[in-house]
């Protein structure tokens, strides 16, 4: 046995790197084998290979490529809501930095709305804005705004007083103090807030789209998943779910790459 182990000579690093892909592949294989082996009704739970085929077709590999349209509908709404949330968060944090009352208001509002799953506001949003894109944007903004605002506030509040003095010593104007000292100092918390905000928004919009599409009549990946069930295209629905997961993971790794380039390199990571 010992000789055999030595003979294989696989370095521990390679095993470490392969561990995750092996687990993922194993789970996919188990999915395939269980569904095929136990002859599960494909209308209830399609096999992994069917789902992958539908996903590929949906993305244009030997199919219509209709998924791109749904993804774009979702991302379009999400990006608009993200821009609004970030702008509002910066504005509110700016007020809170300068004024104790504004700070208290922000802190109370964050406290109230952070624990509330903003999807619960969707019925009210429909009442106010109808089955419209505005309703979607409203609930998504409500899910993103508070975590972003609260982490921005913490980020600015924890800037080292020594660095602020350094900035004063080198005669930085108010604006350049913000851009050259405060913002880079708050960057770890800012990125963390943007990441959490994006994650909340992504969950919320998919959930909201299950109720209705971006433009009332259709659109959006959540809408697509729900319709797939309606028309018994179950494999399409699974493909949609898989796509939601893949996009979620991809944006997550974008944020991680951003952190690697900035705060990790500088050693200012807080988490």
């Amino acid at each position, binding site marked *: 046995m010992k000789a055999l182990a030595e003979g294989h000579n696989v370095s521990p690093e390679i095993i470490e790197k392969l561990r995750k892909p092996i687990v993922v592949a194993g789970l996919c294989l188990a999915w395939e084998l269980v569904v095929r082996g136990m002859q599960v009704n494909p209308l209830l739970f399609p096999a992994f290979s069917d789902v992958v085929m539908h996903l590929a077709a949906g993305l244009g590999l030997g199919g219509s490529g209709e998924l791109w349209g749904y993804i774009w509908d979702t991302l379009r709404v999400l990006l608009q809501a993200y821009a609004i949330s970030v702008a509002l968060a910066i504005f509110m944090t700016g007020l809170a930095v300068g004024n104790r009352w504004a700070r208290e208001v922000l802190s109370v509002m964050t406290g109230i709305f952070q624990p509330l799953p903003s999807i619960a506001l969707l019925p009210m949003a429909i009442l106010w804005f109808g089955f419209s894109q505005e309703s979607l944007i409203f609930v998504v903004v409500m899910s993103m705004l508070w975590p972003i605002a609260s982490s921005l506030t913490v980020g600015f509040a924890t800037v*080292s007083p*020594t*660095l602020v*003095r*350094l900035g*004063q*010593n*080198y*005669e*930085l104007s108010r604006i350049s103090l913000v851009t050259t*000292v405060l913002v*880079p*100092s708050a*960057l770890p918390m800012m990125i963390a807030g943007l990441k959490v905000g994006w994650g909340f928004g992504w969950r919320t919009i998919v959930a909201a789209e299950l109720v209705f599409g971006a433009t009332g009549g259709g659109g959006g990946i959540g809408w697509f998943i729900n319709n797939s069930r309606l028309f018994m295209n179950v494999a399409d629905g699974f493909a949609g779910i898989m796509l939601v997961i893949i996009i979620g993971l991809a944006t997550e790794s974008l944020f991680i790459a951003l952190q690697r380039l*900035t705060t990790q*390199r*500088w*050693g*200012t990571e807080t988490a």
Partner: protein
Amino acid sequence: MATAANRAARFEQLSPGEPLVTIRDASIAYSTRGRAATLAVDSVSIDIRKGEKFVILGPSGCGKSTLLTAIGGFIPLTSGSIKIDGEPVGSPSMDRIMVFQDFGQLLPWRTVLGNVTWGIRRRFPKMSRSEAQARARECIALVGLDRQSPQYPNTLSGGQKQRCALARAFAVAPALLLMDEPFGALDAINRERMQAELNRMLMEGARDMTVIFVTHDVNEAVHLGDRIMVMSRGPGRVRALIDNPHVGSPLFHTDAMPLAAELRELLKDTENTVS
């Protein structure tokens, strides 16, 4: 920027020995909300001469850092005046560069070279990037950080961070260098090494610079200060002003021991005055 250059030019015209910093009846009170104001510095009057290395020595909490911070223009006086070359101190300026005790005084998102170059380009905005970098490299060499110049501050030791802060301060060539216990947070071995090296750095890189150095370390004071001002605590007052003939002699040199002992006694007395 032009005014800064003019001011710098006027400092050059002062000959060594003339007072550069004139402090008259300076008092600083802190008002904590809801409580009566506590007096941190009480009517300090002192002249600091151009080109001298002036040490403010005192026990912790005696207001020595507060006084230095006021000279830097970071906090206002409650009463009295601080004038630099006849002009009252206003807001902080690059004529008076502060080196803090806090290791976190470097910009974490800039390398050693980047930090020093940043300071130079703030002070001399018209200088070309390459010229600024060349000057930065000289200052980095002076403090012995050549090998670390492409590194980010988070990869430096405490001593290296303070060396970098010194290089940045030297590079800016301020008329007045304010040092707030820069070695106070270092371990004993590194502290002594930096104390011994600071004199060399000042001689080579900042011979004409006026330095005000705040410390609670008697040996540091004797090693670095042309003159030593001892402060008492609660509130901070000038207790003694001593000409130091042993400045620059090696740390713990036997000739300097009596003075060190005397200073230590003075410090002990100031401790006892606290109620």
